C-alpha cells in the first residue's frame, strides 16, 4: 500500500491478491507514499530503526525484515495481521485533508489513538497498524513519543518491489527489541566505540521504544 522507491529505506505494507488483481485489471496501482515521523523524546535520539524496517503484510501475516546497525541482529519475524483490537469513538475531525474518525487500541504495551478515513477504502495503516474500516491517516501513542502521519497521497503507476531476502534468517522479536534498546540507549557500549584513550564511550541517550513488550 505505501512505498518508497529506494531499496534501503523503503517501508511498506503490501497485501497481495486484491491489490494485485486490481492493478492488473485496471492498470493502475493506488499507492500512497507515507512519511514516518518517529519522534524520540526531546527530539534527541539515536538512529531510529523504524525508518529502515521493511514490513510486508500478506494473507493475514505481517513479516518484519528489520534493519539494524549490526547485521548479526537482522532477520525477520512474523506476527498476525491485523493484531490490534480497536475501539471506535464518536470523535471526528479533518486530518491531513481527509474527514476522519478516531479509534483507540492497546498494542505491545502502549495505548494508541488513530484517525482513520472511510473516504479511502483500505484497511491499512503505517507500520503494523491496520484493521480499521478506512485508511489510517494519523496514529500516535497517548504519551506522544511516536506519531505516524500521512503527508503525501499520490497516484503512481509503479509495481511494489519485494527485495530478495535470501540471507535472512528468522529471529525472535524479543531479541530484536532487546538489542534495539541496548544500542539506542548506549550505542558506544554496544558497538565498542573507543575514544582517543582506548576506553569505550559510555554516553547514554534517553530512549522510548515503540514496542514496550
Amino acid at each position, binding site marked *: 500500500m505505501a512505498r518508497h522507491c529506494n531499496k*534501503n529505506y523503503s517501508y511498506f505494507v503490501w497485501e497481495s491478491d486484491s491489490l494485485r488483481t486490481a492493478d492488473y*485489471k485496471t492498470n493502475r496501482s493506488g499507492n500512497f507514499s507515507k512519511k514516518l515521523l518517529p519522534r524520540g523524546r526531546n527530539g534527541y535520539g539515536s*538512529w531510529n530503526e523504524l525508518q529502515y524496517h521493511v514490513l510486508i503484510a500478506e494473507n493475514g501475516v505481517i513479516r518484519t525484515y528489520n534493519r539494524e546497525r549490526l547485521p548479526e541482529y537482522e532477520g525477520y519475524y512474523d506476527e498476525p495481521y491485523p493484531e490490534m483490537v480497536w475501539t471506535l469513538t464518536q470523535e471526528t475531525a479533518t486530518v491531513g485533508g481527509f474527514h476522519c474518525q478516531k479509534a483507540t487500541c492497546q498494542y505491545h504495551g502502549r495505548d494508541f489513538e488513530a484517525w482513520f478515513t472511510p473516504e479511502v*477504502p483500505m484497511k491499512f495503516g503505517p507500520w503494523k497498524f491496520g484493521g480499521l474500516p478506512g485508511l489510517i491517516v494519523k496514529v500516535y501513542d497517548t504519551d506522544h513519543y511516536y506519531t505516524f502521519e500521512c*503527508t503525501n*497521497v499520490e497516484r503512481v503507476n509503479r509495481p511494489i518491489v519485494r527485495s530478495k531476502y535470501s540471507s535472512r534468517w528468522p529471529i525472535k522479536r524479543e531479541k530484536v527489541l532487546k538489542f534495539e534498546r541496548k544500542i539506542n540507549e548506549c550505542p558506544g557500549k554496544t558497538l565498542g566505540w573507543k575514544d*582517543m584513550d582506548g*576506553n569505550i564511550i*559510555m554516553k547514554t541517550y534517553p530512549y522510548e521504544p515503540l514496542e514496550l513488550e
Partner: protein
Amino acid sequence: MSRQIIILIFALVALTASAQKTVIEGTVLDAQGKKVDAYITVAPKGTGIILGFADTDAKGHYKLEFTSQADSMTVTASGLAIGNQVKIVANRSQRVDFRVREKTVQLKEVSVRAQKIRQNGDTLNYLVGAYQQQGDRVIGDVLKRMPGIEVSQSGGIKFNGKSISKFYVEDMDLLQGRYGLATNNINASDVATVQVLENHQPVKALQGKTLTDDVAINLKLKDSAKGTVAINTMLGGGIQQACGWHIGSRPLTDDKIVIGQNPLWTAEVVGMYFAKRRQNMTLYKGNNTGDDVSAELTQHYSGINSVGLYPFCPTGAVMPSGSGLPQKRTFDNHSHILTMNHLEKVFKDSEIGINVAYHNDRIRREGSSVGDQFISDDSRLLTSETMTSETKINNLNIQARYNWNASNGFLANVLKFDTNWNSDRVDGLFSSERTGAAPVNYGNDRVRQHFDRPQLSVSNTFNTIRNLGKNTFDLHFSAGYSQRPNTLTVGIDSLLQGTSTAYQQDVTSHHIVGDFHTNYDFRFGAFTLNYGVVAHASLHGIETDLNGFDTGNYSSRNDLWYNTYELVLGQHYKYEKGRWRLSLGCPLNLYTQTLDDRIRDDCHSYVHLLVTPTFSVNYEWRDWTANANANYSKTVGDPGGIYSGYIMNNYRSFQRSYVEQLSETDRMGASASIGYRSALAATFFRINGSYSHTRDNQIYGTVYQGATSVVQAVDQRTEADSYSLSFDGSKGFDWLQSTLRTFGSYGYSTSERLIGGTVYPFHSRSISVGAGGTITPLPWLNFVLSSGYSWNISQTNGNSDKLAQTVRSATQRLKVNVYVTKQLTLAATVEDNYNNLTAENRHAWFGDATAKLKLKHIDLELKLNNLFDQRQYTRVNYSGLDIYTQTSQLRPRNIVASVRFKLL
C-alpha cells in the same frame, strides 16, 4: 388501574431500556455472484460516525452487530476494487446484501509541509532548527546531536560509523578535506539544513555506473547567510610561573632554563563568505602557548593523489627530542598561520579553486640525551648531550585547482607550489667516555650547529575519467620537481684540550618525478578483477661537499644521479561470497635503476623483474571474525648505499656507504587475527599474531673513533626475524555505566649488528600489559582510569653481555569530567610516568584542568596546565643494542583564559 400503569411503565421502560442490539448481516458479491474482497461499516444516517465494522468471509458473508438510537443507518460496503457502496436501511435487524461492480477509486492527492527529518532517495535532510539547543554556537555543536552523526575529538565526522568522504557547503567543496575549519567556525544560526548524502558519487560521469557506499555531508545555508561576510574571533591571554616578561625572541644561550615566556597569548580570526557561485574562507591563527596551529588544518580526506617529492638529504642537526610528549608541553613557540581558500564556479560544470597557506614559526626547545651505546660485550660508550635549539619556519604553500565535472566526463588538474626557508640552530655541551674493560674519557666539548635547509617543490597532477560505451576509463598523470640546497655547519670547541674543530657539509639535492597510471575494473558475479598499469620515473641528483673531516683515501665529495624507472602491471582479484572475502594481489614490476657517479666516473644500470604477491582471507560468522594474510616483497637498490664520498650525517656520525653490488632485500610476512563482538553483552576482544622474516645482502657497520661513529655498508648477508602476539579486550556494564579494558602484547625479535668489524647477533624482547576503565557514578560525574606497564631488553645472544639492562616503565592516568550544567563543563587529568633507569625524575607527575562555559553569544575557556610544575620529563628506550635516555625541559605551570565570539 395502577397495575396497568405499572405494566405500561414497565413496557415503556423495557422498550427504551433494551436499546436493542441490531444485527445486520448479508453478503457482498459481484455481478457474477462471486465473493469480493470488502468490509462493511455501519453509521447512523447523516452523521457518518462509524459504529461498527466487519469483514467478509470466504463466501462473501458478513455480520454486523451494533447499538444505536437512530431510526435509519447507512450501511457501506467498501473495498479497493469497489469503492464505497452505500445502502440506507432502517435500524432493525435484517439482511442486507450487496451486489457490487468494480469502480475506480478516486483518491484525493494530498501533501503536507516538510518535517524534521525528510527522506528523499539517498538524501537525509536534518532541519538544524529542530536539533539546535541553547549553548550551540557553531554548526559542529549541532552536528553532534543529530542522530547517526558522530564528531570525533580530532574533528573527523562519521555517519553511522562510516567516515564521510566529502564535505560540501552549498554543494561546493571549498576546503578540500579541511572541514574542521567549517564545523568549528560556521555559525549554527546560518545553516538551514544538514544533508547527508548516502551512496555518494562525486564524479557525475560515474553516477549510476559504480556502486559506492561513500557518505557525504552538505550544508544548506539560510538565504540570510548567503552573500554576506561572517567573521568569528577568539582571543586569549595568560601567564606562566617563572621567567620574566619578555616580548620578542630570546637569544639561544641566555642561561635561563625556562621554556616559554610571559605574557602568553593566543588569537584566531576566521572570515567566511558563501554566495551562489563563489566561496571564500580566510583565517589567521597565532599563539605562543605551544598549541599546534596547524591542527585545524588536518586534511580528513585528500582531493587528488600527487607525486611524492622527497629530495635526499642524509644530513641533519642533532636536536633535543620531545621525549614523546605532545608539543604543548615542550615547545617555546611564536607561531602564526594565515590561510586563504577561494572557490569560484565558472560556466556550467567547471570550478576553479585556490588554497594558500603561510606558516611562520620560531620554536625553542631544551633537553638532554644520554646514550648508552654497545661497542662490544665488555665495553660501552656513554655519551651525554645537553642542547638548546631554535628552529625557524617560513613556509608558503599554494594549490590551484581546476575541475570539470559533467555527466559525460570528469577532469581535474591541481598545480601545487611549496617553498620554505627553514633553519635549525643548536647550542650544546657534549661529553663522552668509554666504560667497561678499557675505560677512556673523551672530555667535554662545546658544540654549535647551524642547519640551513631551504626547499622548493612544484608539481602538477592531472586526472580524467571518461565513459567509453559501457566501461569507464580512468587516467592519471603527475609530474613534479623539488630541490634542496642545504648546509650544515658545526663548530666544536674542546674544553679539555682547548682546540677547535669546524665541519661544513653542503648538500644540493634535486628530485624529478613523473607518474602515470590507469585502471580498469571487471566484475563477474562474486569476483572483481582490477588491472592497472603504472609508469613511474624518479630522478635524484645529489652533489655533496664535506670540509674539515679527514677522509683518508676516500673522496669528500659526491656528484651523482640515482634514477629509478618502473613499469608495473598491477593485478588484483577479489572474491566475496557469503561469509568469505578473499583477495589476491600480484603486481609485476619491471624495475630499472641507474647510478651515474661523476666523481668516480662510472655508470651502472640494473634491470630486475620484481613480483610482490599479497594474499588475504577474511571470514565472518555471527559474532566472530577471523582473518589472515601473507605477503612477500623484494626491494632492490637502497638509496642509502650510493655515496662513494664521505657525508656527515650529524656532528657525531659520518657515513660512507658505497657498495659495488646492488642491495637486495627480501621480506616475507604473515599475520592472523581473531575477533569477537557481542553487542548484546557489550563484549569485544581481538587477538593478533604476526611473523616477519627479512633477508638482506648488505649490512651497515659502525666503527667508533672516540665518540664519533663512522658508518659503512658492507657486503654481507644478514637476516632478521620478528614475532609478536597481542590482545585487546573490553566490556561494558550497565552498573554505573562502567567499562573495563585490558590489553597486552609480547614481542620477540632477532637481528644482527656489525660493530667494529665483529658481527653480533642479538635478540630483543618486549612485554607490555595494561588495564583501564570508565565509570559514571552520577549522571554529571565521569571518571576515566588507565594503567600500563612495559618491560624491554635487548642483549647479544649467549650470556656474554653482562651490561645489558632491562628498561621498565609505567604510566598511570586518571581523568575526571564534571558536567555541571549544559553550559558548564569541568575536566581534570592527573598522570604519572615512571622509568627505572633515570637518575633523576624517576616519577614525573602531570596535572591539567580545564573549564568551559558556553553562553548565548560567547564561549569561554579557562585552562590550567602543568599543575604540579613538572619542569623535566625523561624517557628511556632501546634502539637496537643501545639505550637512550632523553630528557626534555617543559613549560612551567601556567594559566590561559580565552573567549570566542562572533565579530560580524
